[in-house]
């Protein structure tokens, strides 16, 4: 006869296969995603490949080029139907691409390296923002003119963000109280001794509009400058369907070149999708984006270019900031310029 205790364990043991099945499910879901080239699509001349592009945040200026490619018909012309999925605070772009839930996503270079250190096989294929838009916004009346002078303030940053760990390593931050980033500029406006993270084309504009006196201090001035708003895909997609990657990269390259030149229609679309982004902030945003995308070395014809040097530097900085372990990633595997137009290689 079973004692009550053994009975209890007996019923527990029935649950175990269920747990195993659940884990098995999540594993097999990667295999059940539709094959990139199914037979019917390959046979019909007017075939359209349907793919998804996951954004890392709500649609805003940093995604302009990806939407411009859609509005101007570059995806369709290449025979690809792209559904752009808006992101948010928990967009999980790295995970979704690695799991095969989406074919492409938008991320930053440091996310690609931390993702690869965690075992996600994602690869950067196109980098529109050469300069990181990441800034720390301080009050003008604080008199702080560079990140090295940051002291005696409350500083709001996202816990664990790579740039934040780097900043903590590089700047003494005397009497700086670090608090979680609240997601808006309210505290900044209320407190003259408050500094916070931002994207140079977004938060400073909001703060100014509300009557604040923001000064944006660029984190890239410290030397931490990951490529941003980059297009990523999985090693699997690159291996199984390189042609798709080539088509999409070509389309977004045109999209970005056109967005920087003529942003009006795209901004209107962004504003419809994300009414919180007014046309005024988007207009400001695209002007602020131009110097980040087009630099002295990278003119507009080289849109999307990446160099091994930059990836190596970033990996070294992440190791120094203890965001990733030494030897956990090979930077040369984290990106490829193979799919970029010849002018950008």
């Amino acid at each position: 006869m079973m004692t009550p205790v053994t009975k209890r364990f007996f019923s527990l043991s029935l649950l175990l296969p269920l747990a195993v099945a659940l884990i098995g499910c999540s594993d097999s879901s990667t295999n059940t995603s539709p094959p990139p080239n199914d037979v019917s699509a390959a046979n019909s001349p007017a075939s359209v490949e349907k793919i998804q592009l996951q954004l890392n945040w709500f649609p805003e200026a940093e995604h302009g080029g990806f939407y411009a490619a859609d509005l101007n018909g570059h995806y369709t012309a290449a025979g690809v139907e792209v559904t752009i999925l808006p992101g948010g605070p928990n967009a999980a772009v790295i995970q979704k691409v690695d799991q095969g839930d989406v074919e492409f996503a938008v991320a930053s270079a440091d996310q690609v390296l931390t993702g690869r250190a965690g075992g996600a096989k994602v690869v950067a294929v196109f980098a529109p923002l050469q300069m990181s838009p990441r800034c720390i916004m301080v009050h003008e009346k604080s008199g702080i003119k560079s990140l090295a002078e940051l002291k005696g303030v409350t500083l709001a940053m996202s816990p664990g963000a790579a740039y934040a760990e780097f900043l903590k390593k590089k700047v003494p931050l005397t009497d700086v109280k670090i608090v979680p980033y609240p997601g808006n500029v309210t505290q900044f406006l209320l407190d003259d001794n408050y500094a916070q993270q931002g994207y140079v084309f977004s938060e400073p504009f909001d703060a100014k509009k509300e009557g604040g006196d923001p000064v944006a201090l660029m984190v890239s001035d410290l030397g931490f400058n990951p490529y941003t708003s980059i297009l990523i895909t999985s090693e699997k997609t690159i291996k199984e369907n390189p042609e798709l990657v080539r088509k999409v990269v070509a389309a977004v390259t045109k999209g970005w070149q056109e967005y920087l030149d003529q942003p009006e229609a795209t901004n209107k679309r962004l504003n419809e999708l994300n009414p919180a982004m007014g046309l005024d902030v988007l207009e400001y945003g695209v002007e602020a984006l131009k110097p980040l995308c087009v630099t002295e070395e990278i003119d507009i014809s080289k849109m999307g270019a990446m160099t091994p040097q930059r990836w190596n530097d970033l990996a070294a900085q992440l190791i120094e900031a203890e965001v990733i372990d030494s030897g956990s990633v090979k930077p040369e595997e984290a990106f490829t310029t193979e799919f970029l137009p010849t002018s950008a290689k």
Partner: protein
Amino acid sequence: MSSSRPNASAAKLFSRGVNWIGPPILLFIIVVGVWFVVTHLHEIPKYLLPRPEQVFEAAWNQKGMLAGALWLTAQESLCGFGLSLVIGVVIAFAFSQSVFIRRSCYPYAIFLQTVPIVAIAPLIITWFGNGFKSILLVSIILSLFPIITNTTTGLISVDANLVNLFRLYNASRWQILLKLRFPHALPYLITGAKISSGLSVIGAIVGEFLVGYSQTEIGLGYLILQSSAQLKTAQLFAAVIASAVLGIAIFGTVNALGNRLIANWTDTPSDNVNG
């Protein structure tokens, strides 16, 4: 029953200990075993489900930081829980004294239960600043309600005949409250405290997420956010396990103290119900 034979009683104590600790340990071994086998048979990316030994390794490599974080979060939870207990009992005392007070204040007590902390976090920061005080407040908001509602139920559900008996002997309101209602409410209070013990840990962690601080003093909540942002899932698991251990420790203490307290008043300790 008696302890005239020390050997027998030691053996009994031992077997009682095994009965208590054995089942959860066995379950732990089974869960870790299945986890180990599954992660070694399938190729699951580390960020999705790390192997048990990777979690152990992450915890060991970061043991100093993890212990510090556990200590800080423990302080926040224990203070939050203790204050909830005191405030909750005082409010329940007030509620038990008049239907009018109860009716007018109950809706606001329920407010505590339903208020989305995320929505009022900016307000809490504005009032109390980032840091310990604000985290404590979040912990209290989350863990107060079960104490109020359970204790109130206990205080007012006293047998009317007993109240009449006390009145017959000219007992004052205060005497009835302390000598009749409160002892009667103790099991209810303890049930409320058991629910709140876990909630106070959740409150401390949520508080660290929303109104916390991060540079010199790192709590488990911060560690969870950081690990999650950096896709260090093994470290995330270690932090989550540490917070679970903290919750279990507080719950276990409340449970043990509760049983001891009730043992003086009732003949059915809640021991059998909650293990």
